[in-house]
């Protein structure tokens, strides 16, 4: 059995068969050409397309991430800027209000002082005028009294001198 197998192996397993070679070549080439047109083209195209699509999606995702991060950063910057701005505005407003208050107070004080001085002056003038009027009145009364006394007793001239000197004395003493 073994010997026959070996002889057959040597005899026909490796024996060339040009017809089979011919048919194999023809069949393979035809299959190759048809499959290339029918199958490999569309399949490989689809695979490449998908590969590109996936790559593009990944790229897009990365880009979107970068963009959103940039926007976030920008937003943060804007927020910080706005914060600073509002702080500044509030501070300025406070300063302005403070200044305004100080100005107004000062002005009011000045005004008040002016009014007080004016009032004091007027009071002084009124007082002085009242004193003058009183003095004249007193002098007239005195003169009228003396006149009556002198008319009755001495001459008027003599008496008046005495009264005047007396009044002078009074005024100097008072002052």
């Amino acid at each position: 059995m073994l010997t026959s197998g070996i002889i057959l192996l040597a005899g026909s397993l490796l024996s060339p068969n040009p017809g089979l070679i011919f048919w194999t070549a023809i069949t393979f080439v035809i299959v190759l050409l048809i499959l290339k047109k029918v199958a490999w083209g569309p399949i490989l195209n689809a695979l490449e397309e998908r590969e590109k699509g996936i790559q593009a999606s990944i790229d897009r995702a990365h880009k979107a991430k970068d963009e959103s991060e940039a926007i976030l950063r920008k937003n943060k910057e804007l927020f910080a800027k706005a914060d600073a701005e509002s702080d500044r505005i509030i501070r300025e407003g406070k300063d302005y209000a403070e200044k305004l208050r100080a100005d107004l107070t000062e002005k009011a004080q000045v005004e008040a002082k002016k009014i007080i001085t004016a009032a004091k002056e007027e009071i002084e003038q009124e007082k002085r005028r009242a004193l003058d009027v009183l003095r004249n009145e007193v002098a007239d009364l005195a003169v009228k009294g003396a006149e009556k006394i002198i008319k009755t007793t001495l001459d008027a001239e003599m008496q008046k001198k005495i009264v005047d000197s007396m009044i002078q004395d009074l005024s100097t003493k008072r002052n």
Partner: protein
Amino acid sequence: MKRVNVIQPKALLKVIAILVPLLLSVNGLVFAASGQSSDVSKNSAAAVAGTAVSAPAAEAAHGAEATEGEEKAGDVIMHHILDKNVLSFEPFGEISLPKIPPIAGIDISITKHVVMLWVVSALLLIVFSVVGGKYKNLTPRNAPKGLANAMEALVEFIRLDVAKSNIGHGYEKHLPYLLTVFFFILFCNLLGLIPYGATATGNVNVTLTLSVFTFFVTQIAAFKAHGVKGYLKHLTAGTHWSLWIIMVPIEIIGQFTKPFALTVRLFANMTAGHIIILSLIFISFILKSYIVAVAVSVPFAIFIYLLELFVAFLQAFVFTMLSALFIGLATAHEGSDEHVAEGAHH
């Protein structure tokens, strides 16, 4: 669940205890009868072997013939492996293939392996025209399903892991060839494993033709990549001129050993697997024992059969892989130099 696990070995033991004496007695009866009429034994043996395992049923049927004489077993095995002019569907009869008169001294009559090649081609064309049609309607937004998805896994594997990683730049040009060769060999290998099938890739003429294609593809790719001058320079392997007298013949021989290795590897692997399966089946016929059939031949044949399924994929992959590798070796040499030069310019 646990009770089932406990019971199972016991049940198996019972089955074996019943089966072994039964087989022994049947053994004696049948082979006693076989002395008188070989016809009866042939049919009953075929029937029993056929029920035991369906896949190598055809082989078993053939094997029945071997009970007539031990020296016939080798003949029957070779009868299965070798090419012939008839398609035999053993219990039902056989179809004689037409003889075509020789053209230019070449006998191009159609044989069993030619028919298998055509069956493979038809299967390939049907499967891939369906898949290709699906891909034509496929936008990148939706995923392939079913057959298209299964084939895509293989195509993508050949594209990336075989072609792209071995050939590198410009691998797209060679993809149709590599894909066709892979699926052609794969389908040939697998068709040899079904009953009534024959392994066309177990014929040295077929593998020789395929590797000659690889040889031509490799040489053309080398010429295209390097030009005639670069190709000749490649033959000297970059050594000193005084060594050329040794290097050039070695390189030229090397060009031919590559396809030769491809041829023998595929042919020997496919043939060997079938011889092992048939031999294991024949052990039971030679020893005339059903115990051997149940205990040795069928389990081991099933094991080898499963191994053959793996080998069918493996050898298709190896052939494609090595083809891609040879193309890559033939084209990449100068290409890598160019890359270095470009790098230096930049």
